[in-house]
């Protein structure tokens, strides 16, 4: 196999891995927006929390896996607190006004938590997992990419089962399609919103840990992660779960190739350009 082809395949695997991570983040935005009309601009902070808590707990129990589970649960607790306090206030308003207040309340939350975190964590961090480079048929592959792909696939499978097979999952999809109809069927939308927000916070924490395999993450990266998540969600159609996954994969692969061949700045510009074009071509999906 030619060297070029090997490089392309190696990059494709990295791209799929980063795409699946983007899809997880985007899914967090999509589910919360679809259920309650709140665009969670603090999702990147939950990713950051996942990384930082894992590092702290690793220092105590010296087992990364246990630490990651603790961080996963802790992110859920923080999500619960945010949902019960801040989001309860946001849900008091209705329709477009709620979305607007939601944008600023979660943006403020993001800045607030970043401000708190930077006091103790001024540096850049990554989850302390050492995974080696693999060589398969002459192709250099990041072991961490394979690990991320495996973990994200398992999570997506679990989410799929949750939404397809469980009552709560089906109820969630019902609310996303028709809130009034769902309420008439006796579904408690507020409780579902809490559940889904907590779920999105936990998924974002895992996405953060996996993201830090390929690059160290600082407090300043939280906002960048949020924006990437919003873009994936917007490109995928905002309320479509399948669309978000496809959009995450596509954008992950595009930006990985773009940053390998034309540079990181242009990769970021490409990401925004796709979002801008999609917003202009199909704006209807957010305005509904």
């Amino acid at each position, binding site marked *: 196999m030619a060297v070029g082809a090997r490089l392309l395949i190696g990059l494709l695997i990295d791209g799929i891995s980063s795409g699946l991570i983007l899809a997880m983040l985007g899914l967090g935005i999509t589910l919360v927006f679809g259920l309650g009309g709140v665009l969670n601009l603090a999702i990147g902070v939950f990713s950051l929390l996942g990384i930082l808590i894992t590092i702290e707990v690793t220092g105590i129990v010296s087992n990364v896996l246990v630490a990651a589970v603790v961080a996963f649960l802790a992110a859920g607790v923080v999500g619960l607190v945010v949902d019960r306090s801040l989001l309860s206030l946001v849900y008091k308003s209705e329709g477009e006004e709620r979305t607007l207040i939601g944008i600023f309340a979660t943006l*403020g939350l*993001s800045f607030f938590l970043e*401000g708190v975190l930077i006091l103790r964590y001024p540096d850049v961090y990554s989850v302390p997992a050492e995974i080696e480079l693999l060589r398969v048929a002459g192709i250099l592959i990041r072991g961490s990419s394979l690990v991320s792909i495996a973990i994200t696939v398992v999570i997506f499978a679990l989410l799929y089962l949750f939404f397809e097979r469980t009552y709560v999952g089906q109820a969630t999809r019902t609310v996303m399609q028709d809130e009034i109809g769902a309420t008439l069927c006796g579904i408690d939308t507020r409780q579902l919103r809490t559940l889904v927000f907590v779920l999105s916070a936990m998924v974002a924490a895992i996405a953060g840990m996996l993201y830090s395999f390929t690059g160290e993450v600082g407090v300043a990266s939280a906002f960048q992660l949020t924006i990437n998540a919003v873009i994936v969600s917007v490109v995928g159609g905002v309320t479509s779960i399948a669309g978000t996954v496809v959009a995450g994969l596509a954008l992950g692969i595009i930006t990985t190739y773009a940053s390998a061949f034309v540079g990181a*700045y242009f990769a970021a*510009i490409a990401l*925004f350009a796709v979002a801008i074009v999609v*917003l202009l071509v199909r704006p209807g999906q957010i305005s509904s």
Partner: protein
Amino acid sequence: MNWEQYKIPAAVVFLAILPAVFFQEGATYISRIFTIFIMFATLALALDVAFGQTDQLLLFTGGIVGIGTYTTVDLAASLGVSLWATILIGGLFAGVVGAVVCYVAARRQLNVIVISILTISLQLAMVQTFNALRDITGGNTGMEVPALTAEAITSTMGWEPLTFLYYLFLLLLTALMVVHHYLTNSKYGLAFDMIRQDEVSAASTGVAVVRYKAFAGFVATFFMGLVGPLYVQIGGYATPGMFQFATIDVLVLIILVVGGMRTIYGPIVGAALIVYVNEALQAAQEFRTMVFGAMLIVLFLYFRNGIVRYARDLAVDRFDLGDRLPG
């Protein structure tokens, strides 16, 4: 007595005597704070034309300020002329960019939320582009900016560079206040009110919604573009980081909301308060992000009408001063 017609002169006189009272020779620290204050007041009032008047939440103030800056500075450098010759072109170009975005957004009937996501994407793309275009912007490390001076004026008045800059900003702010006042008290203001309240019924009664929204976008971004070359005078250099969302947009939004939308004094009061808070936190720099984040939450949840409106409502309720107070 009609307060309405003295509203702008009163504000201009007040702002004009500030340097005489507070600026001290050699103490650039104080004059710098006042210059930053008047700059943010200008940006917030400019945003009010788009967001306050026509509900177009433009979240790319930083990027537009950057476009105004780089157009002015690079054009002047390549033509070998001073910044005075190109500053209007920079403002116009920024205004055209803003008008195009608002025109397309209005044609596609994007609502306020889609516009905010669209413009924040543009904001981030712009800063990345500034980072990437090293030849034009100096990349990450930035570039030096030639001084915007008028020897004749500064030497007669005995002004220091920052004092001169402050008065330049005041000139710009005055022009914007006049434009703002004219717009809100003419057929434009009526059209803006109708668009804000119900776009469909505005269109059905013959208001050219797309044209008015694009025009409001042009006015807002034109003034933001003009702020750019003045903004970079404060430090004498320009880096892409100076035009970031977190550096410009967040403060401008807080200022506009805390001061009060759809008022002339709101941005001035808001800027004074926020720049003061920012300076008070200078000693505890690390708490800045935290405090502004909390402010953003509290303001948008509980206090979306702003100080100026709050004070006016209070005055109207308690003392029945309704028709005597300026808006």
